[in-house]
Each structure stands twice: as C-alpha cells, then as structure tokens.
C-alpha cells in the first residue's frame, strides 16, 4: 500500500513547527502504524534527512508511551486501542494521513511528535497511592473484597496513562485519567483511610498543572485505549464533593 503523510515537525519546545509532506511506499497492510513510520524513517535516514521523532516502547498497547494524533484523532481511528495497535489494513490505499502530537498545553512538545507528559506523574505523586509500608501488610485473604467491587476497581485501574483523554478533550482536561486512579482506589477497602485526602490533593494538582475542566463532551472516553468509562468522572466528582463536605464538617 502507498500513503501520503503530513507529519508535524518541530525541532524543540521553543521552535515553531509545521506539517511536512512525506510518502510512505510499499507498506504491508499487516504492518502496524508505527512500523509504517519505521519504514519511512529508515528511508529518510538513508537519504540524509532527519528521521521523525515519535515515542513508543511496548508496541502492544499497554505501556502508554505511544502518543500520536492521526487524522485528528488521538491514537487514530481503531478504538479502543493505542496507536501502536493500529494496523495499516484499516486505511485506504493512497490515503492522505495527517500525524500530529497530542496537543495539550500541559504536555509541552519535546520534538516532532514527542510530548512531555510528566504532569500525569505529578498528579499521581500528589496522592494516587495507598500508603502501605513494605512489611506491614496483613495476610492477603484477611481483606475480603466483593468480586463486583474488585472488578470495578480493575476496570478503572486499567488506565495506561497515555494522556489521550486530555488530547481529545476540547478543554484539555485530564479528568478521565485522574478519575480512573481515584475510582480504582476508592472501590477498595484498603483505599479507605486516605480516601478524602487523596482525591482533594489529586484534583488540586491536576488544576495546578493547567489541565482544563470537564464539560461532559465524552471525547475522552471515545479515544481511551483502555476503555475507561466516563462514569468514573462522575465518581470522581462525588468523591471530591464527599471529601470536601467531610472536611468542612470536621473543621
């Protein structure tokens, strides 16, 4: 298959960027989208041009490293799935494909298609954990968790931390990401003692990082490779309101 590519090139955070046209020739329909870019890069390199910078690692949809906007959609059109799980057989031969980075103010561009998503790490650092000292844990089966609750926790915990939700959101909100972590821990009895402080600190950090607010457009859910449900955002809002209320009562 052959494709016409328009790829965002930008030397670094400060420099201006622009879309540049490239050709991708003789691509197997069984190649993944990133493998198609590998082929293009190999040719660019041998021609003495600079290859396109893009991020990836596991190439099987679990590490959350890859982060491309393909024809305007975060991770491309084969939802649910990360862009490393997008295969060329999903495109038409000869199609023009526009490739851009995740565009979120809180994710500054490092180079070309690579962005800095450390803001997401800082949200977790603010409180996305259970403080369980190694060595102090009780026997595992002494904490019973109803299967139903544990399944919901697992659904939320499946987030791969890619940031596509923020990239797809018209307000560049990271609510889906944050709600997934908050919900995961709020559905487990182990998460209870820190439940209030966790949600308050994470939401404060999210705001401080400059992410926008949620206005219920659900674009996040549509692109999420881990199928995190937008209902977790409602859960986050409830958790936040509950925590604020409790705090005010205590004060």
């Amino acid at each position: 298959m052959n494709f016409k590519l328009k790829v965002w090139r930008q030397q670094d955070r400060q420099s201006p960027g622009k879309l540049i046209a490239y050709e991708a020739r003789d691509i197997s329909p069984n190649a993944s989208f990133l493998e198609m870019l590998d082929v293009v890069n190999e040719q660019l390199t041998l021609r003495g041009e600079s290859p396109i910078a893009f991020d990836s690692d596991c190439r099987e949809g679990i590490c959350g490293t890859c982060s491309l906007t393909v024809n305007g959609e975060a991770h491309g059109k084969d939802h649910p799935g990360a862009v490393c799980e997008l295969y060329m057989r999903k495109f038409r031969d000869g199609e023009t494909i526009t490739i851009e980075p995740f565009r979120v103010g809180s994710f500054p561009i490092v180079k070309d298609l690579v962005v800095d998503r450390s803001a997401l790490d800082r949200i977790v650092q603010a409180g996305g954990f259970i403080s369980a000292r190694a060595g102090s844990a009780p026997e595992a089966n002494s904490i019973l968790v109803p299967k139903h609750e544990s399944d919901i926790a697992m659904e939320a915990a499946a987030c791969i931390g890619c940031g596509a939700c923020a990239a797809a959101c018209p307000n560049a909100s990271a609510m889906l990401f944050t709600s997934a972590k908050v919900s995961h821990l709020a559905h487990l009895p182990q998460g209870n003692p820190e439940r209030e402080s966790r949600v308050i600190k994470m939401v404060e950090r999210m705001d401080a990082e400059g992410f926008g607010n949620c206005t219920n457009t659900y674009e996040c859910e549509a692109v999420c490779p881990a199928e995190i449900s937008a209902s977790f955002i409602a859960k986050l809002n409830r958790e936040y309101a509950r925590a604020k209320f409790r705090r005010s009562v205590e004060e």
Partner: protein
Amino acid sequence: MIGNLDAKIPDGPLADKWTRHKDHSRLINPNNRRKFDIIIVGTGLAGGSAAATLGELGYRVKCFCYQDSPRRAHSIAAQGGINAAKNYQNDGDSVYRLFYDTIKGGDFRSREANVYRLAEVSVNIIDQCVAQGVPFAREYSGYLANRSFGGAQVSRTFYARGQTGQQLLLGCYSALCRQIAAGTVQMFPQTEMLDLVVLDGHAKGIVTRDLKTGKIDMYSGDAVVLATGGYGNVFYLSTNARGCNATAIHRAYKRGALFANPCFTQIHPTCIPQSGDYQSKLTLMSESLRNDGRVWVPKRKEDCAKAPNEIPESARDYYLERKYPSFGNLAPRDISSRAAKEVCDEGRGVGPGGRGVYLDFADAIKRLGQETIAERYGNLFEVYEKITGENAYEVPMRIYPAVHYTMGGLWVDYNLMSNVPGLFVIGEANFSDHGANRLGASALMQGLAVGYFVLPYTLPNYLAPQIGKRPETDHAAFKDAEREVRAKIDKLLLTSGDCSLDSIHRELGALLWDKCGMARNAAGLRETLGKIPALREKFWREVRVPGKGEDFNQSLERAGRVADFLEFAELMTTDALERDESCGAHFREEHQTPDGEALRNDDDFASVFAWEFQGNGQIEKPKLHREPLHFETVHLTQRSYK
C-alpha cells in the same frame, strides 16, 4: 583478579538460611540511612519496588529509567500472573513445592538457597500487593482467585485479568510516587545509564545521558543497583519492548562484573507468528491460554494448507498431549517451544512460511461457554484479532515460539551483589533464580521479592562500613568514564554509510535465532562466532547515525544499544559453545536422549558459567569462572513431564 567465586550462601538447613541470614545481617540506624545515596537504574518490578522500599526506609535514592515515566517499564507488559506459595486452593502447594518446581523447571542449574528464599518470601508479596490496592482477580466470596500456569500441577498463580504485570507495576509505581513526593527518591526519567564508575574496585557511580537534551551527567552513590531488565532484544525480534537493552549490564561487564550464563534464553511457545520483514516486535499470547487451549498441527503435511475446521479430529496431532500425557498442553516453555519447532521442521507447521501451530479453544468453548472463555482471555483474543485480523473464537489461533526472557545476567551472590563490591543486580538483569529455564509467573515474583523483601536486608551488609566513602564526581574515575562515553557517542555520530541500524540489527538477530536459538550445535555456534565480528565491523563502517549528540536523538539512542548487542552477542555465543551439554532452554543437538529431550551432563556442567571481560578496546575471548552448584536438598533427576 577474581579468585574463587563465593556465593556467600549462609550455613544451616535450607529452610532456615534466610531467617538466620537476616538475623545476622547488619543494620543501619535510621539517622545514618539518609547519609547514603543509592543509585537504582530501572523502575520495573525489581527497580521500582527496591527504590520505593529503600526510600521508605530513609535512604536517599536516585532512580533512573529510559522511558518518559517510571510506570512504563517493560514489566508493565507481563500478562499471565505471579506465583506464590499461599496454598489457598488446598491443592498441596507449599514453599517447598514452589521451590522444587522452580529448581526442576530450571533444569537444576540454579542455586538452591536463592530459589528457596524466593519461594519463602513469595507469600509476603501477595500480602504487600493487596495492601497497595492491586486488584487481583477474586472469587464471588471475595477471596483471591488462582489459576494454574505452565510447569506446575497446583493452582498458585495470582492474576489481574490479562494485565498482571501492569497492575503489579502500577502498585509499585504508586509506592514509588509516594516516595518521590516525600523527597526520599529523586526520579530521573528519560535518562539512560551509559557507564558504570568503579573506584578502588567498588561501584560508586554512573554516567548517564539525558535523552531529551543529550546532556551527559555523572552521579555518585554509595552503592549502585542495576535493575535494567533482560537482553532478549539482542535477537532483534522478541516479545520485549523496543527499548529493552543490554547496555547497562554490558557496560558493567566491561568494568569487571562477571556475566553469568548468557546463553540461557527463554523462547516462549505462545507468540503470534511473524508476518513480514517490517515487523518490529513479536507479541506474546499469555501462556495461561494453554490452560484451556489445545495445541495441534495436522498429522499429514498435505493438510497444512487446509482451513483448520476442515481437518477432522482424527487427522490432528495434539502433539503435546501425546508426548507429555501428564502435563499435556501445560508442559514447560522450553519443551513446548522445541516441540513446536520440531513439528514445523517436519513440514507440519501452519500459516505463513509454515512457522506456526494451532492453539484451539473449540473444546473449551463447548465445555465452558464462550462467555467464560471471554472472561478469562477476552483481551488476548482482541489483541490477536487486531494483529492478525482473525477471530480466535471461530478459528484456532496460530502461535509460534519467540524470544521472551533471559535467564542469564550479571553474576550475583546470595546478597544479590556482583563480584564488584557495591554493585547490586536485581530482577531479570541478574542470573540468579531461574537456572536454564524459567517457569511461568515467576519473573514477576522474583522482581518484587527482591525489591520489597530481600535487598532491604542485604544491602546494609555492604553499606554499613562504607559510610562517608562516597566520592565526588570530579574524581578521575568519573572523568575517565565520562570521556569514554563521549568518545563512543562521537564515534557513532561520525559514521555515515548507507546501511540502516535496523538492517544490521535484523541481520544479527536472524543469525542468532538460527544458530543460537531453540536448538544449537557446535558447528553452527563456531560459524556464528566467525560472523559476528564481521557484522560488527560492518556496523562501524557502514551504518548511518543521523543528528547530533546534544539533542533528542532516537537514532543515536538505538545505535548505542545495537553497538552493545553486537559485542554482547559474541559473549552469548561463546557461552553456548562452551556449555557442551543440553539443559533447559539451552538445547545442544549433540546432547539429547533417544526421544529427543535435553540431556544434561551433571558431572561436568552442574555449575554457573561466569565470564570475565578481558582486554580493553578490542574483544578478546573472555575468561571463564565456574561456580559449582551444590544440591543438598533435591535429587538431580532427568526432568520428565511425561
């Protein structure tokens, strides 16, 4: 020079060794802990859990990884599960049995004491993970669920859907985040370790490159812990993430750390077969699928081109069930992989190039219903469909073995310290627990065991007398290492031939896969040893590495890793040639039983092969040191899964 290799295994009965060792290990008081800087390279299960735990204890930790976030370490990709001897199923499991299965699974090429300790602390891991909020699968009663996994007859594997590694790593990452927030751990993502600094014989620092800016930096520490994962990508195609590399451990090897059993590479039986040259990695289909899937190929070559549903039951060869009646489809990985290669070599393989076998769920779907199968493996079936375009509920999956895990790694003693004092090596990066073959669900166990429960006890034994000995980074040893790192980068950037990096790496991989893969023989290994230097020369002569050093330059990153693989491949092949026996994943065609199983030679080879780097600059044959393995508790037997 290196004298006798002392594994420092504590005295006493096997079951008491670890407790006694802990009781007699040194302690460092809380006020002094913050006087120690610990460098940890790697944030997978091993490095992440170690960094979090040591930070929590009050050490000052500097932690490094090459990904943009510690949460993306390759451990995230593990699917199937983690073993622990909880015996929640009341099916006869025990610490001893997990120990025995691991020793036997490793074909009697691992240390009894290390493996016993691993089995012993396995139970604490599950407690710790549950406390952290890892959402393991549960039964309706609310109790934890288990499943069985390759190489075991009991159900001792804990899992979180098909994303166990992800959930364990996120648990560990959250603990790490807590310490980062507390200021005990300083995190350096996107920072690659390029050299180890050894000063007066002790590991005291590292040289790194900031992958975002290209800046070279030096860090000094009181001890250095490498948790940099496996080197399976030396084969180019493997189930590992693209960035997995041998660089950190290879550089440490060149600085004097012994490399143990480099030829022990696990080839996983259940991966999606390769479909073309452009392919950048192979995808694992979790081994847990073998619990319900049945492996077969047509009995006759002529049937291979037919659609699988057209091949009647009587014309199918369920070769694992036939050859290994008691383990059947759950036979260990090395055995299952070789059996697949064998039937494909006979011309009975299916799919492109005849390199595939069927993994069929039809019976399980009939027995349990599609819903149950979907609940157990739904995401794996989806992955399979994405990659191949086929629906495995309707047509059997096609699978083929692929490079998956490396049992070899830097040599370490019982304390997990290498022969270079102050250099600790944990997780897949060391050689310690899996012998010549690793059982499913035991790498995750090893990673967390070490970080949460072993290193915190063994590290102080080295550290206690080291107080106040941390050098400054302006010391000559740092400057020398820095100069070498810069020189290598400059040399890589000077190349401007017309060969691409991937093409050379692919060539290396194909060579190793063919001659140093599932089956090896002396002639093939010698031939490979002749070819690798030529390929290395070609690399330095003809490869093209674009861009500059002080920049975000992914080509340069990869070039450095490929250059190291090209050296390391020779070590691996040398080891495979020197080990003139078959054991576990190392199958030397010259040594097999009449029915084609690996034939060990315990008289000559019941030892660890630990290689010492010789010479600087050019590659000379490394020097072999042997650590004899003493089996006091188990009887060495011919492994049988029949």
